[in-house]
C-alpha cells in the first residue's frame, strides 16, 4: 500500500502541474478577478489569497477529465496490468502473432509476423496467406469453435525452408477474436536435414577423388614402380585431389552451418566498400600468384546495406576468388560498387576479363555441385559449392545475384541488395 502511494504521489503532482499549465489563462484571469473584487470592496487581499489557494488546491485534487488525458499518462497507466493495451502486449511477443476475427480476416499482425511473412494488410483473410491444405483445415476447425486449444505444424519450403508450430486460441469470452501464434521450429528440422544432406553429399562427392587417388596408388605400386617421372606427376595429381577434398569438406561444412542458422532479418549496417576492400586485401597474395590484379571502383561516400558482416565477406570472397581463378587469363578483375539510379538498390559488380562462361551453363551456376566442364585436360579446381553458398547467403539478405557473360570477353557477377530501411 505504502509503495503504491509513493509511486502515485509524484504522478499526482506532475499531472496537476500539467493541468495548471493547460488552464493557465483561466486561472490567471480568475485570480485577477478575485483580486480586483477584493480591492474594490476594500479588503486587504486576504480574501483573494484564499481564493488563489482554493483554485490551486482544486487543480491539484480534482482529477483531470479522462477525455483530456494526454498520451504520456496512458503509457504510465500501461504499467498496470488491467489497463495494458492488447497491441502493446502483442508487439512485445517475439514470435509471429496474428489476431483474426471469426471469419478469418487478419485484424492485427505484430512486428515479428511482418518480418517473417511480409507485411500483411489488415483485413486480409488468413486462408489466403496460409494456403497449405492442412492450414485451411486447421483454420476452419478453429473458426468453427469447439474446445481447443488447437495446434498444427506448418512448413514453408521456398524460398527458405522454415517450420512453425502454430497454436490458435479464442481470446476472452465473446470477443469473437482468435489469436494465432507461430513458434519457429526451423532449427531442429534443419539440423536433422543437414545431417542427412551432409552425409549424402560428402559420401557422393568424395568418392570420385578418392577413387582416383586409389587408382594412382595402385599404379605407383605396380607398373610405375620404377618410373621417377610418372611418380612425380602422379604424386602431384594426388596432392591436388587431396587438397580438393579438403576444400570440399570446408565448403560443405560452411554451407551446412549457414543452413542451420536461424532465419532473421539482418539489422547491422554494413558498408560494402569496407567489405569488398577487406576481401581484396585478404586475397592479394593469391591474386598475385595467379597473375591477376584486383582493381576497386568505389564511391566516395559509404554504401550501406543491412547485413551480417562475416556472411557478406564470404560472398565477396567467393566471387572475387572465382574471378581470379577462372578469369586469370584477363590479367585483371574489377570490383565496382554503386547505388542504383533510382536509389532502390545497392549494386556490387565483380567483373573479370577471362574466357567467359558458355551461355547454357549460366542459369545453373548456383546449383549445388554444378561445375562447368571447361574441357579435357584442365583440372577441376572448384568444389561446385562456392556459388551455392553465395546464393544461400544472398537469399537470407533478400538480395539477388545476376550473371552476365560473353565468350571471349569475360563474365560479370552482380549482387543487388535492397536499400537499407
Amino acid at each position: 500500500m505504502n509503495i503504491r502511494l509513493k509511486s502515485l504521489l509524484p504522478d499526482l503532482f506532475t499531472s496537476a502541474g500539467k493541468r495548471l499549465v493547460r488552464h493557465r489563462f483561466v486561472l490567471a484571469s480568475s485570480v485577477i478577478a478575485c483580486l480586483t473584487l477584493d480591492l474594490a470592496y476594500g479588503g486587504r487581499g486576504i480574501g483573494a489569497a484564499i481564493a488563489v489557494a482554493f483554485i490551486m488546491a482544486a487543480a491539484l485534487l480534482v482529477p483531470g477529465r479522462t477525455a483530456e488525458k494526454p498520451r504520456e499518462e496512458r503509457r504510465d497507466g500501461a504499467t498496470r496490468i488491467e489497463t495494458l493495451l492488447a497491441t502493446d502486449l502483442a508487439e512485445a511477443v517475439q514470435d509471429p502473432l496474428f489476431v483474426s476475427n471469426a471469419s478469418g480476416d487478419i485484424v492485427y499482425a505484430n512486428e515479428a509476423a511482418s518480418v517473417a511473412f511480409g507485411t500483411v494488410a489488415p483485413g486480409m483473410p488468413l486462408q489466403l496467406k496460409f494456403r497449405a491444405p492442412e492450414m485451411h483445415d486447421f483454420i476452419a476447425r478453429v473458426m468453427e469453435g469447439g474446445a481447443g486449444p488447437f495446434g498444427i505444424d506448418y512448413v514453408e519450403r521456398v524460398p527458405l525452408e522454415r517450420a512453425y508450430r502454430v497454436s490458435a486460441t479464442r481470446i476472452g469470452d465473446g470477443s469473437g477474436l482468435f489469436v494465432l501464434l507461430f513458434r519457429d521450429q526451423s532449427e531442429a528440422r534443419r539440423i536433422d536435414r543437414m545431417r542427412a544432406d551432409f552425409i549424402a553429399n560428402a559420401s557422393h562427392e568424395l568418392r570420385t577423388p578418392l577413387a582416383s587417388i586409389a587408382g594412382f596408388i595402385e599404379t605407383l605400386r605396380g607398373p610405375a614402380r620404377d618410373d621417377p617421372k610418372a611418380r612425380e606427376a602422379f604424386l602431384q595429381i594426388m596432392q591436388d585431389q587431396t587438397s580438393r577434398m579438403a576444400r570440399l569438406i570446408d565448403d560443405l561444412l560452411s554451407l551446412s552451418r549457414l543452413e542451420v542458422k536461424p532465419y532473421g532479418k539482418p539489422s547491422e549496417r554494413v558498408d560494402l566498400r569496407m567489405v569488398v576492400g577487406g576481401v581484396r586485401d585478404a586475397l592479394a597474395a593469391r591474386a598475385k600468384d595467379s597473375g591477376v590484379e584486383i582493381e576497386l571502383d568505389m564511391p566516395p561516400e559509404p554504401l550501406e546495406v543491412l547485413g551480417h558482416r562475416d556472411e557478406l565477406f564470404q560472398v565477396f570472397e567467393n566471387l572475387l576468388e572465382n574471378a581470379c581463378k577462372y578469369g586469370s587469363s584477363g590479367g585483371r578483375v574489377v570490383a565496382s560498387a554503386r547505388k542504383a539510379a533510382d536509389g532502390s538498390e545497392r549494386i556490387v559488380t565483380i567483373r573479370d576479363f577471362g574466357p567467359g562462361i558458355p551461355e547454357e551453363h549460366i542459369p545453373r551456376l548456383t546449383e549445388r555441385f554444378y561445375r562447368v566442364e571447361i574441357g579435357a585436360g584442365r583440372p577441376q579446381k572448384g568444389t561446385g559449392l562456392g556459388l551455392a553458398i553465395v546464393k544461400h547467403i544472398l537469399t537470407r539478405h533478400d538480395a539477388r545475384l545476376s550473371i552476365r557473360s560473353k565468350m571471349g570477353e569475360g563474365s560479370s557477377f552482380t549482387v543487388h541488395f535492397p536499400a537499407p530501411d
Partner: protein
Amino acid sequence: MQSQHIMRSFDEELRFLANQIGGMGGYAERMVDEAVSALVTGDPALARKVIADDAFLDQKEREIGEKAVIIIAKRQPMARDLREIVGAIRISGDLERIGDLGKNIAKRVVAITETRQPVRLFRGLSSLSDLALTQLKEVLDAYASRSAEKLGLVRDRDEEIDAMYTSLFRELLTYMMEDPRNITACTHLIFCAKNIERIGDHATNVAETVYHIVTGTTMPPERPKEDQSHKVVAPVPTETSE
C-alpha cells in the same frame, strides 16, 4: 475488398471466392512440391497420392466457376468487383492446369525410377522446381495482399526459369548421347522439366490477372519468350574428347 458493400452478403460471396482460390493455390503448390520430391526420392506411394489429389483441384475449379457465374447473374457487378470475379475464374483455371502438370510429373515417377538414375540428373530438376514454386508462392502472396508492386519481378523470374529449362534440356540431351540406356529416363525427365517450365508460365498468367484485378489495366506487353530449347540441337560428335 477494403471498402464494404451495402449488401454484406455480397462481400461474403467475394471473400468466399478468394478463399477458395487460396485453397486451390495451396493444393497446387503442395502437388508440385510433392510430385518433384516423389521423383527425386523415387517414391511411388507419394506419386500416387499426388495423382489422387488432382481430382480435388478439378472439382474446386468447377465450383468456383459456377459460383462466379451465379454472383455475376445475381449482383450485376461492375469495375473492380467484376474484375475480382472474372479474375477468380481465370486464376482457378491456371491453378487447375498447374495441378494437371504436377500430376503428369507424378505419373512419370514409376517409369523413371524403374532404372535408377544418378543423382546429378535430379539436382537440376529440383532447383528448377524450387524456382517455379517460389514464383507461384510470390504470385499467390501478391493475390492475397492485392498488391501489384512485386509482380514485375515475377516476370524476371520466369525468364530465369526459361533459361534454366533450356540448360537442363541440353544437359539431358548430352546424357542421352553418352549412353542410349539413359534415353527412356531422360525423355521422361525432359517432359517433367517442360511441365515445370509450363507451371512457371501459368504462374506468370496468374500474375497478369492479379495485376489486372488490382490496377484495372493490363500488364505492359513486353513478354520475351526465353525458351530457347527449340533451337538446341545435338552437337555432331566429330571429335571424341577423352
